[in-house]
């Protein structure tokens, strides 16, 4: 049989199209021999087409491969179309997820062979897997964030459901996904004419498609994407392949995304593009899935951004995965440098180097190392002082996969009110000091009466001698010296009291704790005498230099010692004894014990003694211990009652040693 030219041209055209397909296409006869296959089979089976044609499948396929498809072959030869997915290892070494489409070739009810269309769907499946993996990853992060955000739980799980629904839709539609293939001829004027297509165009996209017009997408293309079509044609005409994505409105009025691969054929003789082969893929669901994913991510960010706290999620390598806008704004000087993929170290180093973090006179490098050492600080908080007097609190939590959720809270206001509170307490302490001096007024009067009596006695003694002897007595000098000394003593007593009452908040500095204790004993001198209190002071050799605010620690000692003395007054314990024992605990601290053998503290108030207005004294405000504890805590220590077997009470606190270096 002689073929006409047009038949030959037609055949060649089909061959060309088939060869350009990204799928195996061919025909197998009843003996399971390959009658025809497109070019792609050479790649997959690593044999020239000449060899493959006429070869039996059993010979061509590896045993495993054959077993996989044997049942399907039986089906198709029995006249039943096969459309199945299988995973097959091909001789080119690739393992592909393939969609096997066997279509029986039958005539008068008798099967003569079958057509096959084998599509590599690995990519698609991989994309789906990847999508699933991404979703799973996102799920995990959302779970982390959910746990962290607590109150946003509901919102997020709602979003989870929406996402699941969109996934379900995607799954259904992706099964319907199919490729379209069509071919244009291009004439010498550049006009294009659709010469062939796979015929499912109008079926898919409805009667709006007029296949006779080469610009058949145009009427249904989303108007925002028309420019893509124009650019695409330009590209193809200049003999370049193109891949474009654009939206069309299908017959049902749905927006669908298409991805179009175009490949021009260039005729050297004519020096122009003569043909364009196009494969179109409906990627609507993939796009929608991607959009949903993006949307999801946006919502997550929105949720994170609407938190008042700064949020950072680090992976197990401490690289930043997610963060919100707040954390950026918290660090006005260095926040802009926070970005995904940066390590925690890089982020804090930027802050330190920008001078934004106040590193407390430590070398920046050392500060960074110490900060890294305490990251993640699970279960504790880390307060960081920023320039401009702001304070940021950092709280970390580990995620199930070894990552870290790090929350940053601006606690400046809290710190400010803390500072205000301290100021108020200092004021209160000042008022209390005046009050305690008031309580001591009569004792002080006695204290002062001593030197005054001395002065008066000497002065009168002198006057009397002068009256009787009419000349300076021999011991005039001694008497005057005594008068002067007593005057000095009065002045000292008065200035002690004045200092104690009026001094305010000097900064912490090196002080001798021994001096402080002795000064307080001086102040309490007359009370101590009145109650015949014996005192025992024990200090380490070489004294105890401490880093304290003197007036505050004096106040603490005053309160503790006065309490002890007052307790003697209540009980009449004999003989009253007060001990102040000081010894080093370690390189950094001294321990101070203030003990007495008085009646001790009433069991009914023992748990409340550090609360304000709790007292077992007949007079007094009950503020002494409360204030004392605040002061000691302000010095980084703690004041507490020590349980001893001995009678009386024993208070213990620690003081920072002054470091001699």
């Amino acid at each position, binding site marked *: 049989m002689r073929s006409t030219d047009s038949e030959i041209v037609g055949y060649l055209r089909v061959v060309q199209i088939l060869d350009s397909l990204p799928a195996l296409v061919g025909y197998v006869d009843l003996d399971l021999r390959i009658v025809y296959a497109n070019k792609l089979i050479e790649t997959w089976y690593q044999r020239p087409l000449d060899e493959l044609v006429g070869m039996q499948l059993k010979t061509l396929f590896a045993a495993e491969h054959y077993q996989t498809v044997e049942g399907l072959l039986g089906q198709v030869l029995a006249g039943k179309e096969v459309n199945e997915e299988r995973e097959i290892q091909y001789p080119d070494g690739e393992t592909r997820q393939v969609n096997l489409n066997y279509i029986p070739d039958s005539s008068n009810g008798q099967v003569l062979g079958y057509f096959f269309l084998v599509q590599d769907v690995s990519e698609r499946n991989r994309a789906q897997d990847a999508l699933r993996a991404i979703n799973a990853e996102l799920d995990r992060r959302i779970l982390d964030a959910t746990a962290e955000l607590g109150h946003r739980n509901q919102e997020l799980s709602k979003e989870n459901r929406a996402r699941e629904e969109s996934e379900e839709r995607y799954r259904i539609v992706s099964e319907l996904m199919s490729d379209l293939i069509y071919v244009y001829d291009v004439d010498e004027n550049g006009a294009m004419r659709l010469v062939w297509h796979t015929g499912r165009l109008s079926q898919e996209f409805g009667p709006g498609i007029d296949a006779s017009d080469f610009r058949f997408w145009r009427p249904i293309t989303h108007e925002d994407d028309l420019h893509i079509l124009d650019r695409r044609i330009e590209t193809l005409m200049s003999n370049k392949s193109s891949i474009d994505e654009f939206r069309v409105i299908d017959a049902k009025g749905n927006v669908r995304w298409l991805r179009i691969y175009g490949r021009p054929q260039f005729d050297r003789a004519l020096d122009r593009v003569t043909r364009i082969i196009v494969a179109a893929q409906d990627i609507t669901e993939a796009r929608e899935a991607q959009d949903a994913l993006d949307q999801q991510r946006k919502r997550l960010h929105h949720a994170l951004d609407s938190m008042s706290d700064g949020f950072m999620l680090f992976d197990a390598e401490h690289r930043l995965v997610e963060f919100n806008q707040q954390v950026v704004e918290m660090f006005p000087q260095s926040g802009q440098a926070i970005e995904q993929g940066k390590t925690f170290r890089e982020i804090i180093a930027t802050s330190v180097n920008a001078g934004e973090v106040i590193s407390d006179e430590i070398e920046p490098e050392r500060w960074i190392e110490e900060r890294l050492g305490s990251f993640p600080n699970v279960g504790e908080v880390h307060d960081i002082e920023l320039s401009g007097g702001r304070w940021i609190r950092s709280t970390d939590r580990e995620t199930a996969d070894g990552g870290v959720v790090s929350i940053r809270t601006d606690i400046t206001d809290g710190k400010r009110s803390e500072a205000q509170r301290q100021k108020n307490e200092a004021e209160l302490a000042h008022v209390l000091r005046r009050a305690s001096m008031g309580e001591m007024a*009569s004792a002080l*009067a*006695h204290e002062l*009466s*001593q*030197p*005054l*009596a*001395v*002065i*008066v*006695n*000497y002065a*009168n*003694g*002198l*006057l*009397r*001698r002068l009256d*009787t002897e009419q000349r300076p007595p021999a*011991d005039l000098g001694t*008497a005057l010296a*005594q008068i002067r*000394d*007593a005057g000095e*003593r009065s002045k000292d007593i008065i200035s002690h009291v004045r200092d104690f009452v009026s001094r305010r908040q000097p900064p912490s500095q090196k002080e001798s704790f021994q001096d402080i204790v002795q000064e307080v004993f001086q102040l309490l001198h007359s009370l101590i*005498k*009145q109650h*015949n209190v014996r005192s025992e002071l024990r200090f380490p050799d070489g004294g105890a230099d401490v880093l304290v605010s003197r007036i505050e620690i004096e106040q603490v000692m005053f309160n503790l010692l006065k309490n002890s003395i007052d307790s003697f007054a209540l009980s009449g314990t004999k003989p009253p004894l007060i001990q102040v024992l000081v010894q080093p605990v370690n390189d950094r601290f001294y321990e101070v014990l203030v003990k007495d053998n008085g009646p001790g503290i009433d069991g009914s108030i023992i748990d409340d003694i550090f609360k304000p207005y709790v007292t077992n004294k007949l007079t007094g405000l009950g503020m002494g211990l409360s204030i004392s504890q605040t002061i000691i805590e302000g010095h980084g220590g703690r004041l507490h009652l020590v349980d001893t077997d001995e009678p009386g009470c024993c208070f213990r606190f620690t003081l920072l040693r002054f470091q001699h270096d």
Partner: protein
Amino acid sequence: MTDSPSCVHIIDDDDSVRASTRFLVESVDLVGIEYASADAFLEAYSDRGPGCIILDLRMPGLSGLEALDVMRQRSILEPIIIITGHGDVPVAVRALKQGVFDFLEKPCNDNILIETINQAINFDLSEREAREKRQSIHTALQLLTPREEEVLNLLVSGKSNKQVAEHFSLSSKTIERHRSSVMRKLDASSFAQLVRIAALRVE
């Protein structure tokens, strides 16, 4: 008043107050002796003739009031002037009940202090004189025979010579002799004086 200066015992734990008090009292020709505590005073005390004691009530060790008790037990009889820097009424009342001479608040006016000291010393002087007199009467009474003592008792109870003679079944003459002997031994110049002396004896 005697020729040798009177003595002021000054008990105060404050060295300079004590010294100044001494300086003051010595400006009026008294002798001051210092003690740093009640214990020290009890340890070192000896009777130096007429004088007084100045005691600061607020002192460590033996408290002021306890010291008063001990002084009385030890028959330290100089009048005691309590001085305190702090008006403490209950303590003052107790001190006065324990026979303290006076109670002054510190710082005290020197005129008042000196005057009080002088009063106390005068009081001590008369007390000492009275004690001496009592002592001499006591000694004289020891010289009486039992019969003379009996006669004296009856006489000062208001009986006449005759009644006393009847009581003993003796002659009035004998009783008259006893009576002259008693008056001579007790250095009484009249019967009225004899009665006064006999009254002192009873104390």
